[in-house]
């Protein structure tokens, strides 16, 4: 694509805590579908987004079993976004802050997720056409 861009995102919110995460995933999805190259750095609670042991659950309030509920796990969204990026001719690079992973014990990430430091995010931003930091608020 002629106008292929490189975009860098920093996410900070833990899963299932904030609508900001869904908004971030929408933005990443839009970029992936357009074939842009996307780098994501997860800081603090956001490192749990890719935790491999996330599990869907049934929901008795909804009256649905596990299969019917089809509860979303962000790790599956990351896998799907990565596949979408490749399908569209782009790339999605997902990197977790290593120390943030260690202090939370969420080292088991889905395949393709890397480990890094703030310097890696700085390098992503240096290489990117634009950068968006989406921090935890409050």
């Amino acid at each position, binding site marked *: 694509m002629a106008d292929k861009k490189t975009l860098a995102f*920093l996410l900070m919110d833990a899963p299932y805590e904030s609508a900001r995460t869904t908004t971030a995933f929408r933005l990443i999805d839009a970029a992936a579908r357009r074939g842009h190259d996307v780098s994501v750095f997860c*800081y*603090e609670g956001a490192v749990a987004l890719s935790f491999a042991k996330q599990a869907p659950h049934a929901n008795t309030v909804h009256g649905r079993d596990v299969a019917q509920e089809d509860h979303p796990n962000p790790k599956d969204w990351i896998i799907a976004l990565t596949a979408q990026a490749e399908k569209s001719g782009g790339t999605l690079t997902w990197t977790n802050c290593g120390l943030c992973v260690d202090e939370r014990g969420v080292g088991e990430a889905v395949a393709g997720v890397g480990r890094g*430091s*703030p*310097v890696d*995010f*700085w*390098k992503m*931003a*240096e290489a990117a056409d634009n*950068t968006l*930091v989406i*921090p*935890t*608020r*409050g």
Partner: protein
Amino acid sequence: MNKKILQVVESAYRATIEEQDDTVMWFTHAIRGGGAQTAVLLRGHAVNYGVKGQDASGIAFGDKKQTQPPDLPGDLTRLIAKGVEVYVVEEDVEARGLVPTDLIGGLIPIKKSVVPGLMARFSLIWQW
């Protein structure tokens, strides 16, 4: 290529006891160590990071003591010593009943009205 980054810090004292620092200050120290050209703008509650004499020591849960409490003004002082400019919004300082002598040395006070001009000097603005 070395983009100049302004870190705008507004959310304050977020998990500082658990982290033993402010996570954005820590992040800024890390990227500065890697060679980034960066500055910090403290606004809102975060201007309080510049107040001298803060002491977060003494917390204990059961027998588990916090032996290395955060030292936010110390972290700022060390950041300034690394050549990082740290700005504070004057109106936000005044609104909290603080006066310049309450603050550590090396902070650069600026009026709210000149913040857009400050931002214009940077390639990237990261609002935390």
